[in-house]
């Protein structure tokens, strides 16, 4: 019984991790259709913002929850103004540009802090379920994923800003005709996507450690999750994370970590063969 609970908790934690690393990309790629190959590096920058400000003596929670997203959000805004805004609608060019950005960011951080793993201890300690002990931080990650998803849903569903953002993404000319500046909406949306990625990096830093090349470990999973999710950016990401995260964790429990990852990829491939437009291309089509 305790063991079942532990496995369930690990599955939830696997799903939450996928949600956290994918939400930023869901906004930038799922919503804005910008293929951001530097998404992993945005995570990495978030991790470094958190770690460096923590080492500078700032409170851990402020470092993770405020500084990481704020710093990467600002970087995202600069990147959008200098690079991305010239490339909307040109998918291949965007891929090349963001890939270059990704390499530049890895190289730049490498020069600045060195190619070494740094980390800090996970806060909150642990608690017991029967004979098992679990890190409380795992629970915090699950809660963080739920709160983030809820916040995004509330903003998109109930605020004017959310409505304008959705409208602009669907038909920017019509939005412009109605007096909205699509230029500004794109910039703010991209910055929010970047901030979400930065927050993800900050949240994961205590458990995975931070290294300039860490982005490469996450970017493939993030893209697979968002693409498997399909058109409805939030529902799709949640559904895909739920499915793939569960497959990954159960696969890891039953076999080895390697076969767990293989199972995740196999399920994603089969799913996209059956549902080429992702989960929300067939189900929950009217969802957000």
């Amino acid at each position, binding site marked *: 019984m305790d063991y079942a609970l*532990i496995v369930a908790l690990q599955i939830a934690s696997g799903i939450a991790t996928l949600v956290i690393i994918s939400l930023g990309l869901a906004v930038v790629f799922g919503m804005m259709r910008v293929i951001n190959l530097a998404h992993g590096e945005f995570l990495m920058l978030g991790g470094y913002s958190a770690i460096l400000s923590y080492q500078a003596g700032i409170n851990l929670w402020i470092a993770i929850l405020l500084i990481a997203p704020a710093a990467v959000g600002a970087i995202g805004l600069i990147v959008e103004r200098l690079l991305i805004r010239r490339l909307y609608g040109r998918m291949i060019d965007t891929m090349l540009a963001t890939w270059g950005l990704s390499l530049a960011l890895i190289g730049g951080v490498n020069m600045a802090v060195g190619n070494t793993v740094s980390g800090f201890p996970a806060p909150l300690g642990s608690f017991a379920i029967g004979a*098992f002990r679990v890190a409380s931080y795992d629970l915090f990650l699950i809660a963080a994923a739920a709160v983030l998803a809820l916040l995004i849903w509330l903003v998109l569903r109930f605020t004017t800003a959310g409505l304008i953002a959705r409208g602009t993404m669907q038909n920017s000319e019509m939005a412009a005709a109605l007096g909205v500046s699509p230029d500004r909406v794109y910039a703010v949306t991209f910055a929010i996507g970047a901030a979400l990625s930065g927050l993800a990096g900050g949240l994961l830093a*205590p*458990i995975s450690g931070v*290294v300039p090349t860490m982005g490469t470990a996450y970017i493939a999973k993030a893209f697979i999750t968002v693409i498997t999710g399909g058109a409805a950016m939030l529902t799709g990401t949640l559904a895909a994370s739920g499915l793939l995260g569960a497959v990954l964790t159960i696969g890891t*429990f039953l076999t080895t*970590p*390697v076969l*767990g990852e293989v199972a995740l990829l196999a399920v994603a491939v089969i799913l996209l063969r059956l549902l080429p437009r992702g989960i929300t291309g067939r189900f929950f089509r009217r969802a957000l």
Partner: protein
Amino acid sequence: MAAAGATLAAPLVMRHAALGADPIKVAGIHDVSGGLDIYGQPMVACLEFAVAEVNEAGGLLGREVQLINYDPQSNIQLYTQFATEAATKDKVAVVHGGITSASREAIRPILRRFNTLYFYNTQYEGGVCDRNCFCTGSTPAQNVQKLVPYVLKNWGKKVYIVAADYNYGQITSKWITKYTREGGGEVLGADFFPLDVTQFGPAISKIQAAKPDAVVSALVGGSHVSFYRQWAAAGMKSQIKMASTTCGDGSENILLSAAEGDGILAAFSYFQEIDNAANTAFLAKFKVKFGAKLAYVPPELPMRTYIGFQLWAEGVRRAKSIDRMKVIEALESGISLDTPAGKTTLDAKTHHCTLDVFVAEMQNQGFKVLETFPQQPPLDTASVCDLAAHPNENQQYVVDVKI
């Protein structure tokens, strides 16, 4: 500052004046960037220190030693490229390097083909039998064979293994299993992780479900440090004891906080804390030169690199030549050195070392030595390899571990 610079520069000038002939070129190939940099950086520091020490004492055969460092960036392809470059372009007298067993097996055949002497200064799974190659680190019959009995005696008979998923981890896991069974213990399970895995949640739950008395880890590299971190975060430290064949090699004791690391057991052929005159002298000199870069000399690998270079230098002195065959023959004549790690003797039959082994426990971001096992011969490799009888052998035996 300027005055300090002048005093530092003075011996350099004198040295160049004293040593006229062409320098002897020596190559070091160590990862100082990428996931394995936690091992490579201290190794390079110790190699530089060893070379500087020899040069300050007048060089070798009246010639200065010139060290050429290559950084393969934790990338096996670069290893083969740099080994070829060192052998053919630089025409070095010897190559010191290789960290993972995978990298060693990538460059060992190349250096043999180009008749370039090779020193591998890392603890590893044992079994390399190649007259062109000297392995100066400890092997499972020296370290695992001390670590596991300590665990069985003091902690309990039920063991769970977590290891890196490549030849070192797989083979070491077999050795751990062998010594556990020989000691009357039982292995409840073994999990293997690729070097880039950072999420260990499911593994930690699996271990808890198996309820072992101790976990023995053979995890490798920067990403795997997360295992110890997540283990501590889950509050497991007070529940199940942890021993490791690798933890400390990568300065894990510094990367982890004292709360996360204290109590992890390790067995290596060197710890900074061991107490002898040579070590005290070494540390005092080393701290002056590299103290700013490397405040703590991690166990095993950097010290074996230092000793590996000293062994080669002694071989050159005895051979009075840097000719490969003459140096090999000199090295096979039974060279024994008093080193900071205790006495190290090069075994002619296996090209491995007889050395002291220490069992120690991580404490306060350092290690506390608990037991000392003087002069342990490389029995694992010796059981399969005899280069005196078969000098043309060239392979790594996977020592048949009966489990």
